[in-house]
């Protein structure tokens, strides 16, 4: 009977303890996996906003093309602007028409003369947006600067809070999982004390006795991770239509197969590691000799 068979026998003979260990590992992996997905998605959303022209400087009607160039140059000289696009009155009208094509009433009322020309400015780094907006504001031929500072700042705030909260929660759950695996394996060692004694006396080495317990912890971590990944994947597939319509324009969906595979490997790696730590502590504590 190999070590794997012995491990399987240990699990089969105390199914409730095994169930408890797999359940806590499942829960931990599920929460960790959810936060990995959320962190990935929030990164993508933030990148999307960072690459968008976040600041629009509306120009006065009497501005000449050399004045536009001069403002553009001033912004480019800072080295902080990624892209500056001039939108003429006619282009603004086209955009307006496109956005309101289903509402003829709104289209009738507007002509290119009432829409201002503008400069759409995007920054290389989102934090430099304020500096670019301030430069644009100082220009006398700039009528108004619309700055999406609040949206972006809120997004950054949310992302960093999400990450901190995720780290703390996952850290706490990992700690609880290690303790539970330590307890489950510790109990099994105590129950099998006589068997362990017999094994020692018939010439079993330390690691021959220890391995099945370490493998058992790994097994719990592996099963918990795989189940959690399966459920997460199903949830992701189920919610994809809703999320992709909610996050229109953000290149997040469909989530690539490779990413899902990486997630599985990460979760299995993490789960197995937690299982090893828990079972190793139990073996170290209760099977010293």
């Amino acid at each position: 009977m190999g070590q794997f068979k012995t491990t399987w026998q240990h699990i089969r003979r105390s199914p409730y303890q095994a169930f408890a260990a797999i359940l806590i590992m499942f829960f931990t992996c599920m929460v960790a996996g959810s936060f990995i997905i959320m962190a990935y998605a929030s990164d993508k959303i933030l990148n999307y906003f960072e690459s968008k022209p976040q600041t629009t400087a509306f120009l006065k009607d009497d501005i000449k093309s050399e004045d536009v160039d001069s403002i553009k140059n001033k912004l480019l000289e800072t080295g902080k602007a990624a892209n500056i696009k001039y939108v003429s009155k006619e282009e603004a009208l086209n955009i307006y028409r496109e956005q309101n094509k289903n509402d003829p009433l709104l289209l009738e009322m507007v002509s290119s003369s009432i829409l201002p020309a503008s400069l759409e400015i995007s920054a290389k780094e989102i934090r430099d947006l304020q500096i670019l907006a301030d430069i644009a504001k100082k220009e006398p031929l700039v009528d108004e600067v619309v700055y999406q500072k609040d949206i972006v700042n809120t997004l950054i705030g949310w992302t960093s809070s999400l990450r901190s909260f995720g780290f703390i929660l996952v850290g706490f759950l990992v700690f609880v999982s290690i303790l539970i695996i330590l307890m489950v394996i510790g109990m099994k060692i105590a129950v099998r004390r006589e068997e362990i004694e017999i094994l020692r006396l018939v010439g079993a080495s330390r690691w021959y006795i220890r391995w099945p317990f370490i493998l058992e912890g790994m097994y719990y971590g592996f099963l918990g991770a795989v189940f959690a990944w399966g459920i997460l994947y199903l949830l992701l597939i189920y919610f994809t239509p809703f999320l992709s319509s909610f996050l229109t324009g953000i290149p997040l969906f469909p989530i690539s197969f490779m990413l899902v595979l990486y997630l599985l490997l990460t979760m299995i790696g993490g789960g197995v590691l937690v299982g090893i730590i828990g079972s190793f502590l139990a073996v170290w504590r209760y099977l010293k000799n």
Partner: protein
Amino acid sequence: MIELQNVSKKFGLNTFALENINLKILDHEFVFIVGPTGSGKTTFLKLLTHEIVPSTGTIVIDGESIAKLSSIKITKLRRKIGVIYQDFKLLFDRTVFENVMLPLEIIGLSSKEITRRVNYILDLVNLARQKNLFPSQLSGGEMQRAAIARAIIMEPNFILADEPTGNLDPATGWDIMKLLRDINKTSNVTVIVSTHNMDAVNSLGKRIVRLENGKIIKDEKQIVKRHNNENQ
């Protein structure tokens, strides 16, 4: 060969389980360790299997001192010794066959070789028909024969039996003693038996080491057999 030189084992400050033991047991010998409860018989056997270590003195087994052994060497030492207990120490969730194969499984023998050797040994101890039974389905004598089979499966140099007949009726106990004697005779293995069963001790006419209060008070080769009711 087993040699103990000035071996003492102290539990606590002044309680001697064994005191100043000097003893030499030659290869292929059959030795009884006798004495009342608490005389140090079990301590003596536990010292040989390195379950405990002596407080003072040296124990040499097959030319090697076992005072300070690494865990790997302890494992190797135990593979040279087959141990038999009063309470059999069988695994109750494994069949007779699985219990007997345990030492072979530990050293990683192929299942074909394990089957061959276990079947041979079970025939030897007359347990072939019970090989698929669990210990709870066996009589006391059958359980002890299963334990003996497990002890000899590795072809050890030594067999240590701690009160092997303690839980058995006299007739079954006598069968077990005869089995140990036969193993000693046919396999040339050194057998050390601690026992209270003076009938068996006197009948077999082997060397007797008598312990009292942790000390050897007599070491003699008994020639005269008081009982001749055995089938030799």
